[in-house]
């Protein structure tokens, strides 16, 4: 699904290398988790893959289903099937959540030369998916993320994911700012979207989220590289021992 080869990235504004040769191969239908200490480059990786400005790729490549994505605009990557669930979803006052969702769904369809979703069909689909995430009509009517609690913002991210039906979903610290109940709800939303053709990359600090969204593969990232890859047990190991042992191993 997503192949990342020897990815080197630095900040555009300053001469600071963040990613120093990331290699990752994500197969269809799998859930990969990336864990790692603060500043290891996890969020940068998610931003670079989804097309945020301010970064310069100095070496390496990233392919989504065999197609290079690093030269694409953010909206083209989205239309190609990439989705980033933000750690801090942005508030957009004055733009209704429904308007935003419908604009996004139809913009992607247009970019893919598909027929736009009619207002009636859209309403039907969004209501059903919102219900599963316990998002009520009031939340759909409100401005995008404005006045939403931390949990509501993250549920709204998952609703967008459910509506856009991406192939490759990157979740950037989706567990941050969530209480236990909200984490369960968000995880249920994610798990409902798991299928053999959809791949997830779950970035998190804590093993806790991985109790709910069970990963197939766990990667440890440090200092701009993937330093260790293993099964779900690797996450438990980190939870117990911290990153210090692993960092020493590679030092």
């Amino acid at each position, binding site marked *: 699904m997503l192949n990342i080869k020897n990815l080197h990235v630095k900040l555009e504004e300053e001469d600071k290398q963040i990613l120093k040769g990331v290699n990752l191969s994500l197969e269809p239908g799998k859930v990969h988790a990336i864990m790692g200490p603060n500043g290891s480059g996890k969020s940068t990786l998610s931003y670079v893959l989804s*097309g945020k400005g301010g970064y310069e790729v100095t070496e390496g490549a990233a392919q989504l289903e065999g197609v290079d994505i690093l030269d694409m605009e953010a*909206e083209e990557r989205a239309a190609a099937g990439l989705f980033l669930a933000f750690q801090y979803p942005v508030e*957009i*006052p*004055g733009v209704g959540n429904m308007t935003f969702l419908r604009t996004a769904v139809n913009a992607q369809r247009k970019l893919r030369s598909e027929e736009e979703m009619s207002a009636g069909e859209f309403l039907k689909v969004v209501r059903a998916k919102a219900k599963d995430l316990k998002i009520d009509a009031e939340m759909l009517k409100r401005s995008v993320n404005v006045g939403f609690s931390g949990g509501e913002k993250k549920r709204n991210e998952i609703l967008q994911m459910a509506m856009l039906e991406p192939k490759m979903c990157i979740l950037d610290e989706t567990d941050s700012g969530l209480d236990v109940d909200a984490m369960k709800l968000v995880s249920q939303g994610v798990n409902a979207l798991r299928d053999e053709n959809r791949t997830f990359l779950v970035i998190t600090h804590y093993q806790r989220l991985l109790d709910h969204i069970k990963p197939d593969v766990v990667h440890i990232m440090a200092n701009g590289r993937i330093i260790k890859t293993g099964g779900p047990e690797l996450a438990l190991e980190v939870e117990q021992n911290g990153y210090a042992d692993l960092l020493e191993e590679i030092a």
Partner: protein
Amino acid sequence: MAAPSQQKVNTRALCDAPLIESSGVWSKEARMMASARAQASGLPQRRDEYWKYTRPDAFVHADVTLQASQRSSLGLFDQRATISVAFEDGQIQAATLPSAAHCTLESLSSASGLDLHWARDIYGHLEAAGQKPVQRSLAAVNTAVAREGLLVNVTGAVAAPIHIQATSSGQSDSTIHHVIKVAPGAEVTVIETGQYGARSNIVLEVDVADGGRFQHIRVQDGNERHMLTHIFGKIGAEAVFKTFTLTAGGQLTRNECVLQLLGDDASVSVAGACLGDGDFHHDDTVFITHDAVNCESRQVFKKVLRNGAVGVFQGKILVKAGAQKTDGYQISQSLLLDDDSQFLAKPELEIYADDVACSHGSTSGAIDMQALFYLRSRGVPEAKAIDLLTLSFVAEAIEEIEDSDLAQDILDHLTNTMSAQ
């Protein structure tokens, strides 16, 4: 030192003798006095402090060299039931004036010779009261020479909005003077769309009596046109006055609004949103006087500027001694979509009472890159994402519109205007 050259500028007339001659007693006196006011103060000059950010020349010259252009707001509000009044090249066809319950509608041109008691007490009087402390001589000129306007006497709750639709062609120069009287407890909404002329000088005098409600929504469009407007409002106790203007075109626009809160517990809102692109200069000049206890006033202005467009805001809140418990709010913000555009703001507060809350703020900013990335990461192309963020930016001004249906119409119109660009 050489004497300053006496540059002879061909300026607009300050008086219209045949018009005064033919006017009835109620407007004759007002016109003569206004003409005298204009002559005493003289037309605005470039060096006048009040015209520091907007050159008055285009409004002062006698000649109009512009061509009125196509209306972009045509059809707006058509799906709403309204009491429709059409202005064509600055003229009302009096025979077409509709009638409606709880109000009378007359045209200035046909009523000028009559003795309209209710209008006599307002026509030119609110404008005259608005000449202090700053002279607005082009408004006085308007009172003196205006031949057309809509006179509305509101005596109860008018069910549908009165919709003034102005169209013009060619190099028309329109001077229009509207008068609206809202009786105690009466209610009316007035919508103005379009352009009265290639150049227009518009005065709207509104007297809202105790407990009355007046809502005004205006959409200014057109390309190559110059427009100067003045709203003079007198607001009684527990009355509500709201005006909102959307400017989505026109080379030069100056909207002045002069309001006096004269009764306790009244509230006013003056709001505006403009989208300026290229050869576009837009000036909002507001003066709100609090002269009663426990009144609220709000000024909310949002300007989106690109390709060298210029936005101006001069807003003042004057709180007179004794106007305790005043709640004044003023915000003016610009969204600058490139480095060539500019926003010039002069917020002012002058307060002579000691128990008041007045807040003001003014900002200029660019598009929020994080928000732009958020939208694009969802598949929204950059241009459309900027449109959505522009809507987001002006939303606070549109929220000042009380009627949610009309606010929705304005939003839809804005969306259409942007996607057409």
